[in-house]
Every structure is written in structure tokens, then in C-alpha cells.
């Protein structure tokens, strides 16, 4: 799903430098990861791979990732002070620099609260990102769409129950990605939507006992003004 370039990809976006892939992309991975974790973490560990590991300090990838977890968007001047701000908020942080050539050149694992949640993402160029794993489940989340993330008991009819709720709202599903570990145990759904889901549909989803985790991630804003 490659996005076509627009005018504002060429005379924009407004970002914190110095690199769209190593800084802005890092911020976006941090931002999505923080939203997926869904609460203020006590601690966060970043495992940076390959080019992220080699050139990350010089590109502020470390501050970008942490700034994103703190909720700063790509144009937030606080990113530069992410270490100090994390300290003030009582969030401990740690970095590890690794090489794994089977991974994307700009790749990172974000580990919250000593392993309570582990999220992997790649910065794929020009500030575009992809979250491809959450707690071992495969996903494909890039923040261009409203995205619903579910982890639930693997049993017949779950996909139907969820999509039926969405369909009733005239909200179009742009793409959908399902995964599971073992039959009958847990499974995951990542659903990209063309428009936001109404609040009461989310409440209905929360009423389904077999769904263990629900995250509704809003799309990155297209307009900056």
C-alpha cells in the first residue's frame, strides 16, 4: 500500500530534523507504540537495529523514539529535550544497539514495563513507518488510517462479530490483517478504516468478553496548519 506523493510531501512536512527516516520516522514509531501500549509506562527499552543502531545517536533517533512515546508529534520542539521530560515524568528509558541483517535497515523493538508489551517497527523512508509486530503477532500499521487493533480468543465467528459492528456504521474497511499463534488460543486483528469509529461501537467491542485488548489508533493528521 504505497501512498502517492502529494504537494505537501514535497514542500513539507514540517518536522524536527535532522533526518526524515532516522528522526521523524523514529518519532512516529514511538508515537504509535505509546498509543498501542495505551498507558503511561514506568519504563521503556528500545532495541535499535542496523542503521538505526549505527547512526541513531547522530540523528537523534534515541530522542525521537522516546519523544514519540511521550506523545510528541514529528514537529514538536520538545523532542530535543525528551530525556529531561521523561525524567520529569518518572519514565525510565534504556537503549540497546544491535545488528541483525534479517531486519530492515531502520528497525526497532520498543519494550514497555519490562516486557509487558513488545512492539516492533521499521522506518521505511521519507518519515513513513510500519509497525509490524505487537507481542509476537504480525501487524501492518502505518498510521495513515484510523486503525483498530484487537487481540482476542481464537474461536469461530470472531471476525464476523467485529466486522458486523463496523459495517453497521457505514465505515469502510481499507485493509485487514489477521494472525494467530495456536489454534483455539489467541489471535489478532489489525483493521484500517477510512473514517473514525463512533465511541459506542468501541464500547460494544469492550463488552465482548473474548476480546482481551482493544486499541483504537487515530490516523496521523494530514494537514499541519
Amino acid at each position, binding site marked *: 500500500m504505497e501512498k502517492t506523493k502529494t504537494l505537501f510531501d514535497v514542500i513539507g512536512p514540517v518536522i*524536527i530534523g535532522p533526518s526524515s527516516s532516522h528522526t521523524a520516522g523514529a518519532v512516529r514509531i514511538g508515537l504509535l507504540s505509546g498509543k498501542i501500549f495505551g498507558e503511561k509506562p514506568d519504563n521503556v527499552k528500545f532495541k535499535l537495529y542496523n542503521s538505526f543502531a549505527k547512526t541513531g545517536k547522530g540523528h537523534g533517533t534515541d530522542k525521537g523514539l522516546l519523544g514519540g512515546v511521550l506523545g510528541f508529534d514529528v514537529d514538536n520542539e520538545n523532542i*530535543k529535550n525528551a530525556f529531561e521530560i521523561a525524567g520529569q515524568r518518572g519514565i525510565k528509558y534504556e537503549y540497546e544497539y544491535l545488528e541483525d541483517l534479517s531486519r530492515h535497515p531502520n528497525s526497532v523493538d520498543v519494550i514497555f514495563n519490562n516486557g509487558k508489551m513488545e512492539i516492533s517497527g521499521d522506518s521505511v*523512508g521519507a518519515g513513513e513507518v510500519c509497525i509490524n509486530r505487537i507481542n509476537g503477532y504480525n501487524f501492518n500499521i502505518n498510521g495513515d488510517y484510523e486503525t483498530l487493533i484487537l487481540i482476542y480468543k481464537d474461536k469461530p465467528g470472531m471476525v464476523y462479530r467485529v466486522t458486523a459492528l463496523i459495517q453497521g456504521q457505514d465505515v469502510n474497511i481499507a485493509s485487514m490483517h489477521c494472525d494467530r499463534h495456536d489454534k483455539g488460543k489467541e489471535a489478532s486483528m489489525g483493521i484500517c478504516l477510512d473514517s473514525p469509529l463512533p465511541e459506542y461501537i468501541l464500547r460494544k467491542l469492550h463488552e465482548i468478553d473474548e476480546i482481551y485488548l482493544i486499541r483504537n489508533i487515530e490516523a496521523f493528521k494530514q494537514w499541519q496548519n
Partner: protein
Amino acid sequence: MAKLETFEDLLELSSVKNKRIYEICQEYEAERFETSVENIRKQVKYNLEAMKHAIDEGLKSSEKSVSGLCGNDCAKLLERYKNGKSFFSETYQNVLLYALATIEQNLRMGKIVACPTAGSCGIVPAVIKSMTEAISADMETEINALLTAGIIGEIISNKLALAGAVMGCQSECGVASAMAAGAMVEIYNGTSNQILNAAALTLKNIMGLVCDPVAGLVEVPCVKRNAFLAIYAVTAAEMAMAGIESVIPIDEVVDAMKQVGELMNPSLKESSEGGLATTKTGLRITQELSEKWKNTDCV
């Protein structure tokens, strides 16, 4: 929706509708984004103001980057000009100052506008701000100039990736320079033909420019290159305004650039495996930074 994929399409639309290139651009974008021309101009204005803010902040600072490699070159130029020394007129001085101010804001993690990329962020703002100041032009003229720059970059990006890792620096600082050249001709009210010739002349002369950053950082040679390629844009605009034309039409120049980008060895496309990055000094700097940054951060 009118077809607008090539520069030939752009020139045709401009001629048939008897409109300036920026007008074609804003109407096209409004239709594409399903919004009004006013909203398009509003976002362009926001980006323009962010560009000017970066210049203002950059002119005040001499803080170095995390690596310590760059960050005080704009201050050195300012000092020279303060002492009344320069080979250049004030307008030319400002082109250099604004380009360095912006790209140095970028390396110290300031807020900049990727135009078209972060590593080439100084070129278009430097030319637009210095040239509009020179003739005391209003904000609308600046917006028209940035729209002109934008459509030039957008049409090029239809054919090739604006990324050093894919096409070398010709597609980053090179394209920024072509965008700035077109913007400058717009500021001085040149014709559509002159705008596209200015862009074509620039692209022809930066073709093959490699991306070989020392230690993989957006610093050496990127910082000074922004100043150089901003001046390049002025040279192209000067020639185009005199009626000098590119013998090879701009669409064909872009095709040639793409071919050159594909032929370019991967070691010269942002991988830091060749060129300046692997000179004796480049390698020493890389080694020193890697020693300095070896330890794991932990708080």
C-alpha cells in the same frame, strides 16, 4: 481532473488556460485534496512561516550538532558580513546565510520544513526569502513561489524517488535547487517557459551528484551543499530570465536523471560506503564517533 503528470502537461495547461504555473498547481491540488484553493494556500503559508522561523532561529545560533562536526558556519559568514567584507551583494549574502541557517537548525534538531527532504531543507527557503526581500514582495508572492517550487518537485517525484538512498543527492539537493530556480523566476514574474527552463538548467548541471555522507550523518557534505545549491538556483534563474533555454526539454532531463540514478553505484547512495565517507578523514571521523557513542544509554 486534468492530467498533470509531466512538465509538458503543466506547460500545456498553463498555455491553454492562460494561467501561471502556481495557479495551475493550486487548482490541481485543491481538486486532488477535495478542498478549496484557499485551504491549499493556507497550508502553503503555514509551511512558509515554518521555513522563515527556522531561518530566524538559525541566524541566532551557533550551537553544534550532537556529533560536533557542524553547526557554526552560518555564524562565521555573519561575522564576515558584519565586518563589511563580501564578494557578494546583500541579496546573494542572504541566499548563503539563509541556506546555512536552515540546514544548521536541522542538524541541531530544530523545526524545519523538509523541502523536498530534511537534508536539502535550506535551499528553497533561502532563495524565496532572500529574493522576495530584495524586491519587498508580499506574502502572496512568497506563497506563489513556494507553490511553483512544489509542483516542480511533485512532477519530478512522479518519475523518481526523492531520496538519496535511491537516486543519490541529485534527487535531494539537486531537485531542491531546481525547485528554487523555478520559484525565483516566478518571483520575478518570468514566463512558464522560463520557469521550466530554469529548473531544467539546474537539473542538467547537478546530474550524477552522489550521496556520500560521512558517518551516515546529515552533516558532511550536506550543510555546505545547501548553500552551494541555493546559489546554483540563482544562476539558473538568471540565465532563464535572459531567455537562455535548455536544449534538452525538462521531461527528458528528468528521464536522464533517473537513468543516472539507477546506474549510480549503491556505495554512493547514502550507504556511506564510498566517496567522502570512505576518505581517510571520513573513516577516522566515523571511527571516533562510533567509539564515543559505543556505550549503551541507561537512565
